[in-house]
């Protein structure tokens, strides 16, 4: 099992290396000369050449890639061209905000998806089940900018003004202030995943409830809550958790849209800023971090599945 884990981690690093290459290559191919952009169109060729030398743009691209990658590996993402200061500290605070947002969204997914999925499965065939299934279909099919807008219209000032639609400033104005700013964006981010995970959870719980080992457990005379906690859930969680973790990265990618809607100071907006300003070191840094979140999400999913299912543990040795 340790060997399996080691090889998974190794794979993760290999993928990150490949991603770094792609990210660098893509930004390299972006149109427009960076030096011209910084200096404006009326800069003299000498000034441009000067700045290019200063930025290291005259060196061959493989050399610049090597410097960049070794920097990234040590946490140094270089300097922002527009803001004229190191990216790493800005990135760190933005990343913390985004991770907090994703974390809150994840709680919503677990509550909404896993819990509701289980509850509806236990009430299979009732009105509750049918209602949830219908809502879940709607939930998975609405894109984030629609849910976000609808939520703002409903709670952020359109219909009722319960929650602030924008202006997250951390927890400096008190805990409730921070939380209230997180709820709407987190809900938006969580909707699709919660509906999706809920549907998977519902079908697996229904399947497991029909299994012979659940029948065996019930015929041992165990009370129903114990049958569900001990026998049903551990087995039903595996597919849902795997899917959830595989989509963690996808969810993290969703923050680009959500942060823009709710004007949330996270890594997604930072990336949009980078793109708008042709600030390629910022784009590279953000793309790298989002990709890393994606890959790590998968890794966590694999590890969790191992912990839940002894058969997988066996196969992994």
């Amino acid at each position, binding site marked *: 099992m340790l060997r399996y884990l080691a090889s998974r981690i190794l794979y993760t690093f290999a993928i990150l290396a490949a991603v770094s290459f792609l990210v660098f290559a893509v930004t390299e191919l972006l149109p427009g000369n960076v030096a011209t952009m910084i200096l404006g169109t009326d800069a003299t060729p000498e000034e441009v050449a000067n700045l290019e030398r200063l930025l290291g743009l005259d060196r061959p691209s493989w050399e610049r890639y090597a410097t960049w990658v070794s920097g990234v590996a040590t946490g140094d993402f270089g300097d922002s061209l527009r803001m004229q200061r190191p990216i790493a500290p800005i990135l760190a605070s933005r990343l913390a905000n985004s991770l907090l947002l994703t974390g809150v969204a994840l709680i919503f997914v677990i509550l909404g998806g896993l819990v509701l999925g289980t509850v509806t499965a236990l009430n299979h065939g009732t009105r509750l089940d049918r209602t949830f299934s219908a809502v879940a279909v709607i939930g998975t099919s609405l894109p984030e900018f629609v849910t976000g807008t609808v939520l703002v219209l409903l709670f952020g000032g359109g219909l009722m003004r319960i929650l602030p639609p924008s202006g997250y400033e951390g927890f400096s104005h008190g805990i409730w202030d921070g939380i209230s700013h997180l709820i709407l964006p987190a809900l938006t981010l969580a909707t699709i995943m919660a509906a999706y995970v809920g549907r998977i959870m519902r079908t697996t719980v229904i399947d497991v409830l029909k299994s012979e*080992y659940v029948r065996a457990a019930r*015929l*041992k005379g165990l009370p129903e809550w114990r049958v569900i906690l001990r026998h049903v859930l*551990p087995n039903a969680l595996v597919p849902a958790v795997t899917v959830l973790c595989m989509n963690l990265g996808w969810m993290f990618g969703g923050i680009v849209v959500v942060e823009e809607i709710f004007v949330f100071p996270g890594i997604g907006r930072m990336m949009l800023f980078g793109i708008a300003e042709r600030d390629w070191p910022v784009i590279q840094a953000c793309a790298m971090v989002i990709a890393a979140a994606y890959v790590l999400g998968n890794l966590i999913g694999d590890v969790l599945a191992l912990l839940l299912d002894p*058969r997988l543990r*066996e196969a992994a040795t």
Partner: protein
Amino acid sequence: MAEPLLQVENLSVAYPPYDAERTVLRQVSLAVESGEALGIIGESGSGKSTVALAILDYLATGGRYLDGRIRFAGKELTAMTRRQKRSLYGREIAYVAQDPSASLNPSLKIGTQLTEGMALHLGMDAESARKKAVALLDEVRLRDPVRLLDRYPHQLSGGMQQRVCIAMALACDPSLVILDEPTTGLDAVTETAILDLLKDLKLKRRLSIILISHNLAAVAGLADAIAIMYGGMVVESGPAAPIFARPAHRYSRLLLDALPSLRAPSRALSEIPWQEASIPRTGCPFRDRCDMAIAACADEFSSAVVNESWLTRCVRWKDVLAAGPRHECASDAHDEHAFSAQIRPAGAGTTTAMPVLSVSSLVHGYGRKRLGRPEAEVRAVDDVSFELAEGETLGVIGESGSGKSTLARCVVGLVQPTAGSIRLAGKELTGFSRYPREVCRQIQIVFQNIAGSLHPRKTMSRVLARPYQLYEHRTPALDELQRLIASVGLKAHLLPKRASALSGGEKQRSALARAYAPRPSVLILDEAFSALDASMKIRVARLIRDRKQELGTSIIFITHDLPFVKYVADRLIVMYRGWVCETGRAADILSPPYHPYTETLVWAALRLEGERPATLPETAERDSTPAGAAVKGCPFASQCPRKLGTICETQSPPVRRGAEGRQIACHIPMDDLREMQLAEYPPIAIAKGARA
């Protein structure tokens, strides 16, 4: 006489919409005396599992008790509250399901699953529950019980899992254990061991047992009383021995006579007609298939008392009884058609012509690679050679995991062999990554899981027309399909039905018709009839024989059912872990068996039939090393009852050749084996049966 431990009286159960058609149990009455075993026998769909589930209050959704009552230890089960029932199940009444691998929770350790009931019902603390779990595992004869507690179900073999399930059922010292087909998925040797264990438990614990099975032999050895079910009714019930000897219901009689047996080869296999229409819901459910039916059979008939507790629902039970004990009417008119006599080619020497199929030195290995380094190769098929003559039936026998199915898959080209050659009429096939269509046409296969190999959404006429479209590029006319389906005894009205609407037996025969349609020269039947009941099997075997005489098709018949293969095959191959240990004529190979492995198979089959050749020590529990694991020496050495010594573990056994194409791979010389085995398995009538 004291009240029986469990008494079911006049129980009727139905599913929505609760009409006669969906009434699955009709006036079932059963009794289990304390310390006795009741065997419930019946074909699939006879309602025998529903009886168990009704007693356990675990009917499928919508199931409802229409009538009758169930009394357990003097208490009315049907009148109990949920809470009362919950304290009964697991504590007083325990249940063991058919498939042990499915009824153990894959994510919980054996120990946890064993002890949870004890904590609940007996209030035991973790320490004493664990101690008891060890004692239980020891009681069901599992080795190293302490270590077993911390293992997960998937780490055990099927036989071990079933023992764990039995231990789990015994956890709270119940007075009644209900076992639903507990040995169906297991090979004969393991099956015998489990049944012996049950016999022991019954005696030692004074345990009451309900054993549900379609395997008559399994029930015969254990049960004190039996109930034979048909169409949701108990058609006959009473003490086991007299019923087995001389049943008083025509259905019981036919069912028992249809049982192939290793020992009584001259007995004809009686034929029960197929159930063509739906089972009658009033009167005798069997009357449509019964050769003795009279008008009075359609009337309601409660039951007749043959003798004390022996009840039958047959109106003509006196006439049935008059036919005499089963073993005396061995030779009736059917004997002329007994399989062994007719299908055997005129002489084994006629194989001078080129064989239809010849397989030589076939190897199929699973080479696993991890991080680039190849691991020891696992061979599912290891150096297998055989020839198949025209019109010959070759039986391939061996327990599960012996590589029989992989061999079949190699021959039909589903998997590519690692080495060796397969020739069809002299043409080498191993070079093809995918067989040409003409080769596919000539080699047809019927799989074990028939239901899974017929497209459920297609109508039968489309399924059956497919071979013609594929191989002959034409759409067959309706009457051609009708002839095809009639050739397997099916009615034309099935053609517009979807495969999913067919019964198990109909699917089986449709699959057979589909395989015959392109007139193959080789037909492979891979455990194709293992799921059928005894009477069905015999019908299908007959069908195959008839068609074979018409078309001259050669057949490879893969099975683990020894008595059955004896009736069908001309020659046999015995496989163990991918390796052929014995080959020879079917008539010779079983009487006596030469190879020690064949011996254990024959021994297990005989033991199931109630004969107990006492000599063979109970073989150890099949260990869980993967089938075909690369072993030095004889693959069977660790299990062999006649092991010579270290030579068996270090050197692979030589292949010895005997008369009539018989071959064995064993370190013991053939003549010595012959003498040893003849002493224990004196030549039985089958030797005479091979009149060729």
